[in-house]
């Protein structure tokens, strides 16, 4: 990063002007997330609120303390949204101190060092999730079966003392079952959400409804989720026709974090391409990676990694799909 580059006054993507303010979009997204949160409480109990709340607390505090704008930077609501999204990707039994750490890591590494909102390359919520997954691989893949406790009872691991390990009982997710035991889960429970998994990836119907609402409010680029869902379905249909042992396409789309990721994470306007063609490519790339990792990778789930990888590629996609500026010669990507 040499200093000889001329510092132009450049605003960050998206360049297109929209009458909708950041805060308004954030409000819509938060509204659409409310039912998801209710579903999490319904299936896993009050602990859902605690986990999401702690993750949000970590995110907000980090943004306020380390962020350049301090407490004023919280007004646009983006740090809160990051925290809530992060919380929804966590397993219900996660110790709260880890959720807090996830919020700190997500905002710290995913947002503050990049220069704050609008400049981050990666989705901060997923940065936090990926950091936690790499740091505590076992805890982050220890799932609780839905409805296994009462509404107010907490899993033993929730209140674990920071830095210490507590063993927890583990239930398998539909994707884990398909991958490691060859057992498929019916579409019914996937749609209603009566399956083990992260807090926010339970009910496909509720997630889709939230997506429809956001589309109606024009709060996001509908091309990205559309592209992800369509490509996943098509690729998996082809793949499962060739290799009959693989999971069917409907299961691929409705299980795990695909919908949550497609609707709420991949659509983050800062870390995804802004051109329409770029959005389609971005989505298709995520879907391809998800299908690859889920079918042939070592991990049962790959949505988070797929989105982060395409986040990294999105500056290149944006460059390749930018409309040519009049008067300039054709510029190749490389």
């Amino acid at each position, binding site marked *: 990063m040499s200093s000889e580059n001329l510092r132009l006054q450049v605003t960050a993507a998206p360049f297109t002007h929209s009458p909708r303010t950041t805060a308004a979009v954030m409000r819509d997204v938060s509204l659409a997330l409310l039912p998801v949160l209710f579903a999490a409480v319904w299936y896993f109990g009050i602990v859902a609120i605690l986990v999401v709340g702690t993750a949000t607390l970590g995110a907000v505090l980090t943004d306020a303390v380390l962020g350049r704008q301090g407490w004023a930077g919280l007004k646009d609501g983006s740090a809160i949204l990051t925290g809530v999204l992060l919380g929804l990707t966590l397993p219900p039994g996660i110790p709260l101190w880890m959720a807090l750490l996830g919020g700190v890591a997500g905002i710290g590494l995913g947002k503050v060092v990049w220069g704050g909102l609008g400049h981050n390359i990666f989705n901060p919520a997923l940065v936090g999730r990926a950091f936690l997954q790499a740091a505590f*691989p076992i805890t982050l893949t220890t799932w609780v079966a839905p409805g296994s406790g009462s509404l107010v009872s907490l899993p033993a691991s929730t209140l674990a003392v920071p830095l210490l390990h507590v063993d927890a009982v583990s239930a398998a997710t539909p994707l884990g079952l398909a991958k490691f*035991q060859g057992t498929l889960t019916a579409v019914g429970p996937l749609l209603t959400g009566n399956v083990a998994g992260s807090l926010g990836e339970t009910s496909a119907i509720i997630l889709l409804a939230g997506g429809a609402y956001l589309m109606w409010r024009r709060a996001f680029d509908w091309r990205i989720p559309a592209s992800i869902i369509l490509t996943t379905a098509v690729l998996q249909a082809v793949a499962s026709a060739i290799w009959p042992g693989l999971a069917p396409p409907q299961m691929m789309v409705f299980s795990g974090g695909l919908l949550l990721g497609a609707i709420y994470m991949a659509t983050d306007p800062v870390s995804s391409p802004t051109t329409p063609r770029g959005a389609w490519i971005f989505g298709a790339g995520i879907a391809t990676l998800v299908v690859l990792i889920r079918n042939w990778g*070592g991990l049962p789930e790959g949505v988070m990694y797929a989105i982060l990888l395409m986040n990294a590629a999105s500056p290149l996609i944006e460059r390749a799909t930018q409309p040519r500026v009049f008067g300039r010669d054709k510029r190749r990507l490389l």
Partner: protein
Amino acid sequence: MSARQLDPGTTEPEAGPLKLVATLTIAGLLSGVAIVGAWQTTRPTILAYQAQVLKAAVFKVVPGAQGLQRLAWQGQTLAAEADPGGEGDDTPVVYGAYDASGALIGYAIPAEGAGFQDKIGLIYGYDPDASKIVGLRVLDSRETPGLGDKIIKDQEFVHGWDDLSTTPSIELVAHGKKAAPNQVEAISGATISSKAVMRIVSGSYADWAERLPKRADAPRQEITPAASPAKEVAP
């Protein structure tokens, strides 16, 4: 390094080609002498250590072993292979494990294959008379610390191989689901690495164990007190 530093200076007075060649030759010669010297000096220690590691591993996977020797197929017969043929030698070998009298009590079979991250190298003990795997140790792995490296650290998994029937074939089952003598329990949370170990052992078993002779037909170990049993390891 900047490019400027690598660019031979052209303004300097030219040295004759003879001098250039002479410099490089002398440097090469001296370097050769130094390396060969170090090699000669350190070789015995390195070999002794490797032999010790191998011996420890063989004795662990074949309980009760007192001695070992390299065995390789020579045509249709399994025979003792005196000396390894150098580093490039990759003749597949097994190690015969012997009791104090020089009678074979089992084989230690090295095997390797792809794991979750990188190659996994392991050695397992096989008792041909009982058709049983009697022990297993992972020697080499770069599996995820805290997760995949449980194939080395998780004692429950490691000892799951201590008395494992191979009839009709060995199987991996989920943690806590062992129901038959030919089943090993996977490590919960590290299913992929467990699977990799199982795959490596199964593959090697099909290649080796089925045609290994029974105890009585195996080559005996010559008991010569001076002979150090293992010369080189290729774990």
